């Protein structure tokens, strides 16, 4: 142990374990988290080549191997609680997204929240067993957060009781969904529903995109990877072009809105229900912001106690750089932010679960507030966290630039959250609409 960091620990005025328990939620939760972490960390199946030294294709390959192992192990150990799955996943793929993220984080939750019981019977177990690997295709090349501008169409044909899906323009090609390029064989596609000559706005459809056995793209489907990005090296973010793709009527997610066999449209109780999965993810992003800032501040503060540089008093030994007021001024507000966002993340998860429970009981009264709060806090925390990670990187001087510090990867993996699941300025304006009009 480095003597400087050892001495720091000896000087603390509070019990670290007590605070860890508060951050985890309880001593039992800390214990369980550590059990799960040791399952992963001691498992040779998860040992990996350092991704910093691999090509993108090799990184994707390694990530798919680990994700496949992860699914097997989760079954083997009987881990099914969503929080525990999330914890296990974060140990298998530390600081980075993975190819099955959209399947686990958006495809399955969308089925749970928006599928009818018949649809659950058809899709859920195959998806749980990864016969169906799904993603969530909403964003288009020419349209992002403004959902009414999406161009993909799903036109109901009562003669065959099918929907015909089309990407009518180049700008309507689905663009960005994680796992769409190479991993998934199904996508939940958000498209403008046309029936009986009328457009009824955006609805969700389950669209098979690759053959379940051969994994070849199906007729009418053009699918692939969108290429290298700023971070997200393990993920095959993809494009999807639909050319007269026919799917059965039963593939529209119909827990709320419905299309009857004759083409009659039944409205949902709230138009916001279609976007429930986005609200779920936005609520989670608040906690993700906290984690990114917590990791970055851990790295920068520990390093700042080990690093000695220059002099404060002439002739004295080089001080720890954390003794410089400017270093404290950079890092301690970031540390405070990490704690603040952790508690806000806990609150958002609890609030999401409470309001979702009410929605399942038919009470939609708090849905607008949840929408506004999750949108605003998603934007507020990701903007702040994004700058904070950069402050931490700069606080580590030249070594912050090295990939060995992990700070460049934390930054590039986190930055997309300022634009995905709703571009931040647009999110703030949605919150403003609620504040002004409510």
């Amino acid at each position, binding site marked *: 142990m480095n003597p400087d960091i050892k001495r720091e620990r000896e000087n603390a005025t509070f019990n670290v374990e*007590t605070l860890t328990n508060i951050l985890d939620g309880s001593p039992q939760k800390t214990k369980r988290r550590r059990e799960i972490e040791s399952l992963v960390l001691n498992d040779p199946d998860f040992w990996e080549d350092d991704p910093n030294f691999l090509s993108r294709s090799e990184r994707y390959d390694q990530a798919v191997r680990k994700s496949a192992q992860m699914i097997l192990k989760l079954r083997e150990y009987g881990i099914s609680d969503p929080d525990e799955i999330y914890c296990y996943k974060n140990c298998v793929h530390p600081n980075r997204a993975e190819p099955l993220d959209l399947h686990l984080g958006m495809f399955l939750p969308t089925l749970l929240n928006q599928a009818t019981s018949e649809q659950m019977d058809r899709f859920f177990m195959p998806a749980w067993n990864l016969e169906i690997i799904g993603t969530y295709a909403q964003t288009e090349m020419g349209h992002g957060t403004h959902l009414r501008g999406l161009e993909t169409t799903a036109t109901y044909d009562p003669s065959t009781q099918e929907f015909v899906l089309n990407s009518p323009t180049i700008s309507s090609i689905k663009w960005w969904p994680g796992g769409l390029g190479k991993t998934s064989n199904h996508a939940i596609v958000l498209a403008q529903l046309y029936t009986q000559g009328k457009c009824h706005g955006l609805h969700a459809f389950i669209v098979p995109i690759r053959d379940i056995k051969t994994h070849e793209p199906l007729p009418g489907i053009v699918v692939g990877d969108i290429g290298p990005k700023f971070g997200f090296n393990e993920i095959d973010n993809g494009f999807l072009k639909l050319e007269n793709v026919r799917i059965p009527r039963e593939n529209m997610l119909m827990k709320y809105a419905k299309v009857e066999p004759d083409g009659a449209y039944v409205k949902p109780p709230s138009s916001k229900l279609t976007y429930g999965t986005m609200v779920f993810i936005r609520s989670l992003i608040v906690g993700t912001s906290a984690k990114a800032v917590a*990791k970055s501040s851990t790295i920068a503060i520990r390093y700042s106690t080990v690093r000695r540089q220059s002099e404060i008093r002439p002739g004295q030994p080089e001080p720890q750089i954390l003794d410089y007021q400017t270093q404290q*001024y950079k890092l301690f507000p970031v540390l405070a932010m*990490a704690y603040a966002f952790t508690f806000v993340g806990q609150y958002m998860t609890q609030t999401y679960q409470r309001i979702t429970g009410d929605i399942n009981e038919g009470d939609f009264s708090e849905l607008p507030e949840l929408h506004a709060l999750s949108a*605003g806090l998603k934007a507020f925390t990701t903007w702040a966290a994004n700058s904070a990670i950069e402050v931490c990187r700069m606080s580590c001087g030249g070594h912050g630039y090295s990939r060995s510090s992990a*700070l460049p990867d934390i930054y590039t993996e986190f930055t997309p959250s300022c634009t995905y699941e709703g571009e931040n300025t647009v999110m703030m*304006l949605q919150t403003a609409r609620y504040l002004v009009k*409510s």
Partner: protein
Amino acid sequence: YRLAKNGQQLSGIVSYLNDAGRGRVQPQTVSSRPIVVDVNDLSSLVEVYKLRAAILVELAAKNIQQDMQRRKSEEDAWNNNAIDLVKASDAHCHYVVVKLFTDKLGEIGDTGVHSVLSTLALLYTLHGIALNSGDFLQAGLLSVPQMLQISVRIKDLLSQLRPNAVALVDAFNFTDRTLNSVLGRYDGNVYDNMYEWARRSPLNSTEVHKSFHKYLKPLRAKL
């Protein structure tokens, strides 16, 4: 805001707009007495964040109203005031974060942990005020001497936190494998591990890289 202005009672996190809607929240003149007297009192600081949010929401709403009275459509008036609207949302979210952090302190019984987290919460709150001082000063929520007092207090808080900084990050309890950072190693043995890591770079797999034979050596022969 508009519902509150029409006399409806709002509940939940936006209930603070009840007062704004009824004209009970007004920016103060610079000369009038500021609302917060004690910059060390978290609950009164939460209160000024709340007032700042209410004032900025009201300001944005009034600007939209004025534009509409000048025969602008509601949509154009909205776009014309989008900067104010984003600022209002930002202030609202900032208030929510500060409030939730302060509320959390009430749940913590352990004295040592409560003390250090209170210091962090105060730093977060005062640092936010310092960064957005224009909003607080313009609204008359704080005075210029108080802003100077806040600057001094922030420096005190930095020194107060210094002995606990490593313990506070240790409490996040990241393992070395999940952190995956040579600089952030728990044992602090940074330099020897950084050297080891660099040695594993693929560029070091051979002592002489092939590019020397392919390009530099032929180039040298030509010069």
